[in-house]
């Protein structure tokens, strides 16, 4: 008889339980080999078996040692439910099953260490965008457009837009002539592949996204831009033509910038833009973190650092005010590329976003080329769970408030608004983008959905979210060369390209019925909601 020790951790305390069918299993070992978390093991168990071997039934019972696949108990090797075991099993003999009654949250702070993980917010899955629908459909007087045949201008500004009175025009006869230089503005696709560093991502994953970016631009006429994320870029890319599709990010750690600066004299083209990252929606106020486990040799080279935990501070050192951020960071980054490259800024959505935006709108030097607002449903490679689950701000109302704040001052569109954080969470990024644009965004940025297209199996209900461990089972979020090989670059890039081509069609399918050839920025009249509170907050029509 075993004694009950109630404080022992058992499989039943863990978030996923492995459902293994020994009658189907041939003990090939594939699942054990596939599980990067060593959550399962091959073991021997003493079993009582009844067998009959003769022509007549002659059942006999005996004890024997049999090989089994067993889930490990304890908190060191928790199953994350990634399902790789199921994926590789030739006999469908194993699968993870969600365990609603787990106690994992009470067990994993052993040693007094706060829980860290990757992924996204796991408790605020409320989706306002799904309560908003496109309710103004052109029918009689204003005919809908034919989404297949009509030409649409699906482009958004990235850069500082001037007020009409600030345009350096003179009238010469019947013509206007430009008499001075204006800030750079690039008209790009209203969706940016956002900020996932090479480092957080595996080289293959990053490459797949870069490849898709180039392909979409060169072959599909979809001028999408990709943000590098903090951590620099491969030098070869910095010196190539394709740099023009890249937005280079600078965050508080300034990782990778020594290489970027060294590459500048050799650049054959300008990058598409610079993005100053102040904060991130998934973990506002928490700095960046690249765990040492992921700082492989090539990452050390790209970032110019030794193998260690790489922490980006939660704020940019030396920035003590918004005014100064505009002045100092924007100015130096504008100057770095001789005022040819637009510089934008990304902040986590916050109760204070409108004040920040108002301050930026006063930018007297015309050097702030975009305000990126990142909502709480964004993702991250690594963070404290408490930040992921309990900090942040939804993006939808923030974008709306910022837009309306600009409207009040007659400055809408001057500093383009880009919204991110949970775009495409339910799979349809086009619908989310369209609604946010109607509410005042110029465009959106997506990250998580890109890695999901590459094969990431993480979700908002605690599945996987192990991006911080270096053990990413899909080879996306790890630098372990054996795991990285699991990811097929071409297939991954293809999935992204396919999604974007469909996204483009879907966006047009929404533009057509409201009769718009250009993006409906600020066309809040096109939206209705069946939720009165949402209607009031977003200043759109209530319908029932």
């Amino acid at each position: 008889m075993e004694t009950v020790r109630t404080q022992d951790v058992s499989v039943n305390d863990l978030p996923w339980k492995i459902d293994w069918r020994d009658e189907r299993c041939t003990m090939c070992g594939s699942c054990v080999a596939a599980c990067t978390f060593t959550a399962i093991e091959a073991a021997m168990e003493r079993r009582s078996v009844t067998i009959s071997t003769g022509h007549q039934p002659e059942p006999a019972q005996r004890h024997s040692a049999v090989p089994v696949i067993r889930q490990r108990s304890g908190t060191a090797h928790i199953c994350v439910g990634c399902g790789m075991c199921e994926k590789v099993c030739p006999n469908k003999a194993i699968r993870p099953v969600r365990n609603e009654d787990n106690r994992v949250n009470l067990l994993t702070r052993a040693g007094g260490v706060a829980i860290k993980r990757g992924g996204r917010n796991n408790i605020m899955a409320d989706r306002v965008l799904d309560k908003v629908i496109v309710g103004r459909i052109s029918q009689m007087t204003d005919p809908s457009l034919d989404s297949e045949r009509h030409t649409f201008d699906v482009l958004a500004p990235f850069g500082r837009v001037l007020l009409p009175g600030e345009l350096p025009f003179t009238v010469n006869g019947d013509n206007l002539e430009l008499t001075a230089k204006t800030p750079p503005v690039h008209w790009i696709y209203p969706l940016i592949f956002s900020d996932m560093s090479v480092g957080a991502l595996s080289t293959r994953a990053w490459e797949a996204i870069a490849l898709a970016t180039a392909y979409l631009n060169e072959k599909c006429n979809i001028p999408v831009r990709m943000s590098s994320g903090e951590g620099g870029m491969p030098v070869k890319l910095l010196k190539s033509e394709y740099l023009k599709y890249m937005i280079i990010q600078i965050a508080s750690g300034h990782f990778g910038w020594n290489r970027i600066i060294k590459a500048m004299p050799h650049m054959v083209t300008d990058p598409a833009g610079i993005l100053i990252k102040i904060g991130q929606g998934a973990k506002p106020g928490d700095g960046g973190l690249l765990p040492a486990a992921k700082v492989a040799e090539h990452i050390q080279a790209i970032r110019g650092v030794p193998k260690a935990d790489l922490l980006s501070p939660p704020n940019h050192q030396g920035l003590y005010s918004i005014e100064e951020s505009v002045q100092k960071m924007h100015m130096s980054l504008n100057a770095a590329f001789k005022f040819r490259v637009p510089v934008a800024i990304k902040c986590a959505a916050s109760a204070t976003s409108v004040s920040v935006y108002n301050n930026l709108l006063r930018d007297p030097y015309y050097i702030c080329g975009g305000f990126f607002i990142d909502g709480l449903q964004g993702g991250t490679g690594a963070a404290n769970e408490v930040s992921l689950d309990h900090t942040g701000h939804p993006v939808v109302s923030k974008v709306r408030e910022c837009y309306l704040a600009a409207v009040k001052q007659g400055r809408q569109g001057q500093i383009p608004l880009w919204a991110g954080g949970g775009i495409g969470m339910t799979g349809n990024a086009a619908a989310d983008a369209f609604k946010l644009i109607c509410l005042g965004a110029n465009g959106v940025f997506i990250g998580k959905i890109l890695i999901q297209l590459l094969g990431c199996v993480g979700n908002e209900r605690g599945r996987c979210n192990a991006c911080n461990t270096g053990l990413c089972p899909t080879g996306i979020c790890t630098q372990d060369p054996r795991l990285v090989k699991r990811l097929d670059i071409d297939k991954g890039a293809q999935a992204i390209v396919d999604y974007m081509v469909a996204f483009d069609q879907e966006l047009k399918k929404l533009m057509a019925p409201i009769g718009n050839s250009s993006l409906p920025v600020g066309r809040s009249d096109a939206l209705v909601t069946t939720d009165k509170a949402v209607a009031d907050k977003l200043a759109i029509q209530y319908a029932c």
Partner: protein
Amino acid sequence: MCRIGALKSKQYLHPAQALRLMIPQQEGHDNSGFAMVIQDLGGVFGKYKDKPLMSLACTQKGANLVENYMETRGFIQIFEWVPPVNKVAGLDIKAMPHYIYRAYDYPEHYRKASPAAKEDLLLDTRLAVRALLEKDEQGYVYSFWPDVLTLKEIGDPRDIAVYFRLWDETGDMIAKNIVVQCRQNTNYEIVRYAAHPFFIQGYTLCANGENTFYTKNKEYQRSLNKGYIGFESDSQNFLYSLHYVLRTLKWPIKYYKHVITPLPFAEIEKRPDRDVLTLIRQTLGHLEINGPNTIIAMLPDSSMMTCCDSKKLRPVIVGGDGETMAISSEVCGLNTILPHRNKELDVYPGEREIVVVTPELEVQRWKQ
């Protein structure tokens, strides 16, 4: 669809002529109002061409309110004309108690002011009078400008004409320029301010169709000029943008089209003036219009212009005989009043042009 039209002539015209232009175009349920702005006035107004003329439709109390206000502001009333209305029973008209046209002298301290200062004073005064009348719902002020008169009413255009004796051709109310609309409206909650033509500082405009960018236009225009108010109709957006582009920005007229219906980026890219066009499109994106519509406008120098949405979803035609030029939604109107004109010279404006009839009655076509 509302029918819109404009007449420009070397001779003084009676409003009846405008009615003859419009009534053949009537179709179906097409009788919810009639409105016109006339300019370069003759008849009883002929002597007061340089004096700002106020067009009012109001109650007795409203008339007194305005009189008091104008007096305290130092405006001196030098002429008043009240149209002799014909109160026949059974007319389809929602008449106001009083229609009053008053010409004023500028206040003493403005007599030597610059034209721009005077024009701003006239706008401010009209806005103040409007606010005054609006407060107690005592009436409407449509325009306050030298040599410009506005008449608007709700009802059947024919009956409105009977009521105001427009068929009589007495020679009292005549003008060389007329911008007119016969209203079709399925929205019965209409207010008089929603009826075109609209007027601001010498710019008159009427439109038909729809502007689906109303919300974003309105949100932007509100901050551009204190005179951009009301927004009772989505067509006011067209007027305010016209006023903004020509008067505030002082850009040549062809750029109005580039503002309201910008070229697709791919087309801009191919043009030598792409830098200018791109800047216009990105800076004034919130003045872009959308939906099916045709615009007819009169500018301060009395030239007339017309243009359409970028898909050309509404008809319009320009034609005339050199003595009188007309712009109208449909050709049948032109055929009624100018049957003898050379029809080969008729212009059907394209989706990418602005057609202007100059003060000398020349037709200019500005390609976008």
